């Protein structure tokens, strides 16, 4: 194992001592009542934020807890708050976010902290269930497969947001979630939007009722932080706007 300096207390002097070959990184340690602690990590070419966290865990403090899996932007496990903004750390290069040469990495906001950089994602996925984000089939295995035209309006609406990887970045970035813990959040509502537009799905009446109440899609203020920070460059705000229109139309028709 390489011999690297142990944890260093954060101070202006540490920052002054930083060289071009090193990077200073503050990591959240502990649970809700924790604090940031600062480490020095060697700088590498094409280094990602996840590389930095992994370095600290492998070489400086093995008790550091964090979550990752694929390391290539598919699984959505490694999102953290990097210099104040939620990001997927495996695809975020240090050179893009550490303008001052310093990184501050914390757990995702708006979610309970388990330990260090790992948050409890249960409230996030609970809201998927509350938004009725589960496919309701209308056919059996003996029926013919539904033909969906790729150029249909509904299919295009699904295509626009179907690549969500459930990383929680939008949920963490959302001011409305911060203010109102009952708000379902961008990811759950975007999932609901894909099902509302799924021609094979038969659960829209219950789904629209689930998202039309208090804490549902109408709670969104359209701040658009979700679409600004979504690592997949999806636009949850547009999906939520679609749900607002769809539920309003259903209400006016007396269906809700």
């Amino acid at each position, binding site marked *: 194992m390489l011999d690297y300096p142990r944890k260093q207390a954060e101070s202006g002097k540490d920052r002054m001592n930083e060289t071009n070959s090193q990077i200073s990184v503050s990591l959240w340690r502990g649970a809700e009542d924790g604090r940031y602690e600062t480490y020095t990590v060697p700088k590498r070419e094409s280094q990602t934020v996840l590389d930095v966290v992994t370095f600290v865990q492998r070489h400086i403090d093995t008790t550091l807890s964090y979550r990752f899996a694929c390391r290539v932007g598919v699984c959505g496990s490694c999102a953290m708050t990097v210099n104040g903004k939620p990001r997927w750390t495996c695809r975020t290069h240090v050179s893009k976010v550490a303008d001052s040469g310093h990184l501050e990495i914390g757990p995702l906001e708006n979610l309970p902290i388990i330990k260090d950089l790992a948050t409890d994602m249960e409230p996030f996925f609970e809201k998927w269930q509350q938004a009725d984000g589960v496919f309701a089939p209308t056919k059996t295995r003996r029926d013919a497969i539904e033909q969906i035209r790729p150029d249909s309006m509904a299919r295009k609406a699904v295509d626009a947001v179907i690549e969500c990887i459930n990383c929680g970045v939008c949920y963490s970035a959302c001011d409305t979630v911060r*203010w*109102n813990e009952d708000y379902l959040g961008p990811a759950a509502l975007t999932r609901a939007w894909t099902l509302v537009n799924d021609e094979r799905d038969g659960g829209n009446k219950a789904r629209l009722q689930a998202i*039309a*109440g*208090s804490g*549902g899609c*109408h*709670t969104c203020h359209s701040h658009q932080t979700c679409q600004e920070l979504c690592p997949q460059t999806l636009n949850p705000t547009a999906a939520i706007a679609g749900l*607002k229109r769809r*539920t*309003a139309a*259903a*209400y*006016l028709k007396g269906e*809700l």
Partner: protein
Amino acid sequence: MNVRLYVWQRGTAALMAPLVLIHIAVIFYATRQGLSAADILSRTRGSVVWAAYYGLFVAAVSIHAAIGVRNILSEWSPVHDRSAGRVALAFGLILAAAGLRAIYGLVFA
């Protein structure tokens, strides 16, 4: 905010957009023509059109503002939704009463 409040707030906002423009145009007309209070009252007294126009305006404002106050209270204060709804209802009724009193003075007094 739920879909019922959303529809009423957006609906009253859509209604108020042309009403506000007409209201501003009337103010510009009255000031540029140098109309006195007596001149204005002579045009509005007994007018069903002005009563209906400002009656609709007052109703839209009262509903729209009350829903907005409810949202602000429920999002920015520790007040629960039900209490916020009651405060907003009282606020809306005060606005409506004040507006209708003004219309009474403009058209019927």
